[in-house]
């Protein structure tokens, strides 16, 4: 009991007497976690956004011109139940004509001599948001092209391929930048704690001298590191949240980002908690590496 009390008071005293190092510890943790968090937030949202964009990929299927309405119905049913397909719109020959008239009102006179609509009927498929790989899309397209009732399949191969490449590169970049930032965070926090420790070398030596075990010496510093890490992570989260709210608020009414702005989302709660836990872990880790670096046997 007396020891526990000692540990807590010790950590508190240390935080108070070494205000500068406490501050730098918290700020560094906060700063690195903010950098990391901004990056994570960007990744999280761009990932979401790309999902949404992918959702807008359309595949246009032209059924055979002379298809029976029963077969057309079967085809539609078959496509609707396909897991890769999100929605299906049927555009009849007449719909196509109406659409053309709306789009090119000045060229309508061209069609005046014709009886029936010259445009083919079509089915427009949109992809499910959960369909991130082009493999799946290519697969679907392939299947459709060999379907006996389908005449032609049109889709923007270029656009889909670019999107996939962008996703692949984004994920690769995320991995690289993410690990660099994480590494930098750990390094800087470790060095900060070490520097803070450096100023207390004398205290540690004195404790050793009196016969304190390494564990006894370390515990207050561990508590301190955990507090530093938690505070840093808390500040980082608060900062990120504030910045995020400001950003979405500022951009909400604008059409600049299309409908995307309102679709932006902050980390869900579990991820926030993981961030705080990460801060605590960083603090403890920094302390531990330092302790075992400097608790070599010395008077």
């Amino acid at each position, binding site marked *: 009991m*007396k020891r526990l009390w000692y540990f807590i008071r010790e950590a508190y005293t240390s935080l108070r007497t070494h205000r500068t190092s406490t501050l730098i510890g918290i700020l560094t943790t906060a700063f690195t976690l903010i950098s990391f968090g901004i990056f994570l937030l960007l990744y999280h949202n761009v990932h979401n956004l790309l999902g949404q964009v992918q959702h807008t990929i359309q595949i246009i299927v032209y059924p055979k011109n002379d298809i029976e309405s029963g077969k057309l119905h079967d085809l539609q049913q078959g496509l609707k139940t396909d897991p890769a397909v999100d929605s299906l719109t049927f555009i009849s020959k007449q719909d196509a004509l109406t659409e053309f008239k709306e789009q090119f009102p000045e060229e309508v006179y061209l069609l005046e001599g014709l009886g029936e609509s010259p445009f083919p009927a079509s089915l427009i498929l949109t992809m499910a948001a959960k369909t991130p790989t082009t493999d799946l899309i290519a697969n679907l397209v392939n299947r459709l092209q060999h379907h006996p009732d389908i005449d032609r399949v049109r889709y923007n191969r270029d656009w889909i391929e670019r999107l996939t490449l962008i996703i692949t590169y984004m994920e690769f970049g995320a991995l690289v930048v993410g690990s660099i930032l994480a590494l930098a965070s750990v390094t800087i926090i470790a060095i900060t704690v070490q520097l803070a420790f450096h100023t207390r070398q004398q205290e540690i030596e*004195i*404790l050793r*001298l*009196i*016969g304190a*075990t390494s564990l006894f010496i370390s515990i207050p510093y561990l508590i301190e590191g955990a507090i530093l890490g938690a505070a840093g992570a808390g500040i980082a989260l608060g900062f990120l949240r504030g910045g995020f709210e400001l950003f979405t608020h500022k951009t909400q009414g604008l059409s600049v980002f299309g409908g995307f702005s309102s679709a932006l989302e902050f980390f869900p709660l579990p991820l926030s908690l993981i961030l705080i836990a990460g801060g605590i872990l960083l603090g403890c880790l920094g302390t531990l590496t330092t302790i075992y670096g400097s608790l070599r*046997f010395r*008077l």
Partner: protein
Amino acid sequence: MIQLFHVTKYYDGCLALSDISLRIEKGECVLLTGPSGAGKTTLLKLIFGAEHPDEGQILVQNRNIARLGGSDVPYHRRTMGYVLQDFKLLPQRTVSENVALPLIIRGLSSFESRRKVLEALRAVGMDHKLSTIASVLSAGEQQRVCIARAIVNSPIILLADEPTGNLDPQLTTEIASLFKAINTRGTTVMMATHNRQVVEQLNGRILRLDCGHLVSDQGVYR
């Protein structure tokens, strides 16, 4: 109690102690003398486990200090009190916190430790500055707090390095009698000192070091 066999210590190739053999019995009072730089502090540090001998063996309470694992050292030290030549108090803590530290490390109850701290501080005449921050004390006061910290634990062996260097003659006499009393109660005392008054008053076995060599060993075996 303490035995040294052919102990030699170099610092960066420079000889600090040369081939010291020594046997100190339980309850003895040993006075280390010798000129500045003779190796007195080094000898005390070796016994305390704060330095390792380059050659030879050191047995303290039948434990071989040279072979002590890193995790055993703290327990070895807890049986001893050490008054350092350069004090080494925690500068930001109060006098009573500093003196209580060896007791907290041993996990003593708060009540018992408070009584012991007060007793030790009273013995060195520092009980009126219980809650003063250590770093603002005068040199003599720091030295006395250091002595209090070394004796608060009722150690089996008490090592003291020039414990009266910053004290006036009257306090020196008092501290010398304190060490005498502690010794009489059965504690082995080993003190490095330049002070003739202390040497005479303690009337113990006198070891004289010079340039790392044990040049004389005289006085009483009681």
